Structure formats: C-alpha cells, structure tokens
C-alpha cells in the first residue's frame, strides 16, 4: 500500500533522513519508532507529499502521491484544525475539500468518535484527547484507504491513549492501512510491523517479535534493585555486558552469553552485601530500542 524507496532529506547540509526504505502492506498498522530528532516526522511528511524528498520515490496504492491524494488522510503531530471554527465546521470544511457531500456520513463519524456532544463547540476549546479525535475524524472524512498518524498519542493520558489505539485497531480491521510514528514502546509492540530509525538511518525493521531478536545472541537478566549508581557502574564495567536498563525498581542487564550469571551476582552482592539472584527474561522492546539507538548492536 505504501512503498518508499531510499528517501533522503537534508536540512542545511545535514542529512536528517538518510536512505530510508519502507514497505507497508494493506490493512497493516505500521509503526515508525525512533528517539526525538531521529527523522520520524520528516519521513511521514515525505510519505504524505508535504515535504519534497531530496531523492527517493514514494508510491501510495501503486500511484504517485499527487494522484493518490484522495486515497490517504494525514493527522499531523500538532493540532492542525481551525481553533475558532466549531467541530462541525472543521469536519465539513475538510469534507468539502475532498468533495464529500454526504452529511449523514459525517454525522456518523462524529457519533462513532463520541464527538456529537461537542458538535458546535469551538475546536480550540476541546481537551487534548478530543482534539486528537477531531483531527482523526477530519482525516477520515473522505474515507481514505491509508492513514498517516504522526505521534497521535503524544501528551495524551493513558486511558485516552488506549481508546485511541482501540480506534486504530478497528480501522485496521476495516481494511485501512495505518502508518504511525511513536516513541512509546508499549504502542510499538501493538503494531503489526515496526521500523526503527535513529539519526535518519533505518536500523531495524520487522515484526515486534523479530525486532526483539535483533539484539542477537544475548541474555537478559532482571533483578529487583532500586536505582544505585555504584551497582550500575560496576555491572557496566564487566566484560560482555551490552547494556543496563533501569525500569523503576527493575534493573535489566543485557549481556553476551559468555558472561556467567554468577559473575554478575557476585559483583552486585559485593556492593549491596546481600545475596542476589538474577532472573533470566525476554528482552523487551525498550532494551532493543536503547541498545539500537546507542549503536551497540549493528
């Protein structure tokens, strides 16, 4: 549904997107992951045709972007609706821009996304979550086949975020193709396909499961330990440790297989002066994400 080959974009002589290729199949939710300033927004803007790539090609539904404009919708990272117009006026405006005249369809959309009570409210006075919904509804006015969502849940509370993702799944189940950028790991794990970019380069691509394996032949240990700089430093000093990762009271230690579990346990108990037993766990996306962006794994 979406095919991008070798996209390159420079700003002021700096390559912000460097040879990114993406293929998204119909009905998929495709997640583009990366730290801030990795080039996610630039990539999505090039895919939508609102930013010209320096080189590379984009095809949507097997035609050029210009010809495919009616086939896709786009929700920008920032609220891009007219704050001084009402919810209904915004939706009607975008519908008219695509020549959609079916008022029932629009009313149904409002109903479906719980916006009917706010029909005549100024878009600017909606809460963050409803603003996102309005943006989504405006992008869906012409019933596109493909939907581009740039950080659709940034700054949104967890409950609303879950509701939005339920909507995304529903859209995907209807056969729409979704392209989402995010830096939330649990959202990434909900995507069918993932791509990791850092500093404008694609560093991993595949299903969440295959990406978890991207770390290669490593073991991940988890250990209950509140943050302690001494422990972290001591572990990182060991030969074979790929990275350590603190999640609240959990310390994740990613190591090569050559390093034995007992060696790590000894180092920790020397500092904490208690007996320590590590648990072997699956690597999660965050471990992979941090490892990949730090460039520890190629």
């Amino acid at each position: 549904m979406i095919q991008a080959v070798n996209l390159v974009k420079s700003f002021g002589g700096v390559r912000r997107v460097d040879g990114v290729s993406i293929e998204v199949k119909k009905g998929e939710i495709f997640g583009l992951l990366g730290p801030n300033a990795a080039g996610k927004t630039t990539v999505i803007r090039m895919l939508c045709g609102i930013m010209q790539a320096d080189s590379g090609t984009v095809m949507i539904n097997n035609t050029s972007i210009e010809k495919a404009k009616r086939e896709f919708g786009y929700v920008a990272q920032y609220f891009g609706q007219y704050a001084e117009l009402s919810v209904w006026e915004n939706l009607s405006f975008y519908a008219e821009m695509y020549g959609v005249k079916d008022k029932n369809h629009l009313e149904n959309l409002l109903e479906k996304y719980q916006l009917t009570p706010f029909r005549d409210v100024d878009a600017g006075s909606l809460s963050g979550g409803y603003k996102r919904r309005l943006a989504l509804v405006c992008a869906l006015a012409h019933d596109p086949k493909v939907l581009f969502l740039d950080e659709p849940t940034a700054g949104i509370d967890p409950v609303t975020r879950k509701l939005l993702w339920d909507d995304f799944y529903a859209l995907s189940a209807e056969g729409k193709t979704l392209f989402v950028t995010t830096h939330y790991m649990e959202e990434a794990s909900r995507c069918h396909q993932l791509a990791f970019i850092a500093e404008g380069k694609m560093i991993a691509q595949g299903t969440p499961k295959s990406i978890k394996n991207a770390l290669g032949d490593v073991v991940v240990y988890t250990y209950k330990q509140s943050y302690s700089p001494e422990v972290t430093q001591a572990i990182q000093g060991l030969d074979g440790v790929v990275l350590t990762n603190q999640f609240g009271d959990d310390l994740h230690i990613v190591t090569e297989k050559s390093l034995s579990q007992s060696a790590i346990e000894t180092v920790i108990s020397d500092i904490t002066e208690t007996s320590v037993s590590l648990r072997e766990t699956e690597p999660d996306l965050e471990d992979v994400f941090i490892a990949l962006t730090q460039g520890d794994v190629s």
Partner: protein
Amino acid sequence: MIMAIVKKELLQLRRDPRLMGLIIVMPLVLMILFAVALKLEPNNVKMAYLDEDQSFFSNLIKTGIWSDGYFEMYEVLTKEAIIEEIRSGRAKSGMYIAKDFSALLTENKQPHVQLYVDGTMPSLTTAMKYNSSAATDTDVTNDMYFLDEDAPNTVIADDPFIMDTEILFNPDEKETWFFLPGVIGVLIMQIALILTGITIVREREQHTLEQLFVTPISKTSFIIGKLLPYVIITLIDFYVILGVGWLFFDLPQPSSHLLLFALASIYVAVMISLGLLISLISQTQQQAMFVAIFIIVPSILLSGFIFPIEAIPSLVRVISYLLPFTYFVEIIRGLLVKKTLLVDLLYAYGALLGFVVVFVTGSILRFKQRL
C-alpha cells in the same frame, strides 16, 4: 473546493473580533487623524507659461519668478495649453502674459498678469501664491512706472500691473479634497496588506497549512480561495470609505465612475497580491506585519499623499516611483478633483497593472504546496 476555502475564511473573519475591528474601526479613526493637515515648503514647482508680449517688462516678471528657485518654468504655445498642462499633472502652476502687456504698462493702465495655481494640494497652493508674489516685488517693478511729460498730473497707479491668481480645480482650497482621496488609498493599503499578509503565514504558524497541503486542492484554487474573500471585502471597504467622503466630507464626484471602478479594482489587486507575496515570504505573523509596515510608512510619506512630490529630494523620489500608492494618489486626485483625462493617467494605470503582474508572478514562483 474554492468555495470551501472562501467559506472558511469568512467564518474565521467573523470569529475574530480584532480583525473585524481592523476592517471597520480603523478606517474611521484614520479618517479623523488625517483631517489634520501637514504643510511643507516645496521647490522646483513646474510652471507652464505663455508670454505673448515678449518684452523687456514681461521678461522682468519671469526672471522675478524664476530667480528664487521656487518655480521651474517652461513655455507652452497657447493659453489653453497652460491649463491642460496643469490638468495632466505635468505642471502645478501656469502664467499667462497677454500681448498688450507692455503697451498697457507704458500707458499706466495697470495690465493684468494671469497666474494659475493647481488647487488640488492646498498646502502647495498657498506656497505657490506666496512665492509668485516675488514677481511684484519692488525690485522687479521699480522700472515699470512711466512719467508722462505731457500730462504731469496724471495719477500713477500704486502697482504698475496687477497679478490675477486663479486657483484651478479646488478653488476653495479645501484640505479634505487634497487628503481624502489619498486617505482612501492608505486605508485600503492597510486593510489589504495586513489581512492578506497574515493569511497564509497564520495557517503556517497554526499548523493548519500542513493539513491543507495533504488535500487534493490545486495551487491556483488554493490561492483564489484564499484571496477572493479579501478582494471582495477590500473592494467594499473602498466604496464605503469613498461613500463617507461623499456624504460627510464634501468629496467631489469623479469625472468617470468607470475609471474610478477600474482604479479601485486594479489598486485592490495590487495590494492583495502584494499582501500574498508578503505572506509567502514571511515565516511568522510578526514578520509579515513588519514587512507591511515597511511598505505602508514610506508610502504615506513619499507618495505625494501628504508632502508634495516636488518637496522630496530627487534621490529619494526614486523610491516614490517604486511605490504603487504614488500612482494611486495621482490617479484618484486626477479623477475626483482635477477631472483629468484618461490619456494623462494611462501611465499611472499602466504602472499599477505592472505592479500586479510583478507581485502575482512573484507569488506563483514563491508558492509551493510543501512545507
């Protein structure tokens, strides 16, 4: 799609009380403001003259007027041509000395010298009247008294000749006739430049442009949809302000309503397209505002709207002729006050059309449906 954008623009305007104030209140405030006239001393005012007498005495008068550098004189062939020169704007004043001037003078019959002054700009008129009195100074007139040996008791007139001053086009020297036509242009310039100047840059700032660029609308439809509401609003504003001038400020009717409408349309097109260009080169609304002010202020000062162009040093006058407003002032004063013929205004109309072409081309080159 065009109508969708037009509708959206009008809705946005209606929801923005500040902008509505700009459109309605500002013209009234400025109207009062500009009622206070400014005066400035000009020089090198063009004077068309005809000296049918060609005598020693008539030359004395011409040198008297010429000598202090206020007037710059050139000769025309007929008396009618003098007024025609002033009507066309090539001269601001004129002088006519009749064939029998020296004959009457030698008979002490107080001949008349006819001075014409363009009344469109009262401040200029006053200055011209003052400066032309140099011609009747004693330096000039000393040699003009004749003693008649045969009739020594004849009373010699106090003045050897009489200077008749006729103020053309605006005989009552009404300041409003001078200012109001220009005020209309200033107001239209402000409304058009500021409204259109921010129209695209605001969408850019509020991230709505990004959403618009994804839609299938074409570049031309987008621009037409964006500008159409402002063209109509500004054109209506033009006639509202003009109507106020006609109703309350005794502004004269134009020589041709068709020419006036042509001027209104072309001038609005100039300002709207300039506003569009400003909006396209600016990244923020502040930038757009500043660019607009950078155009408006010199327009007011250097166009001949307040100060006569004759009073502007020739180096700076180059800027005057690069400002569309200069041509507007020229045409509207011509149409309303002087009843100038189209032939003499063609170059000014042409200049305004030229500006439209330049600004529209610039906008098209500058506008890309991309971020």
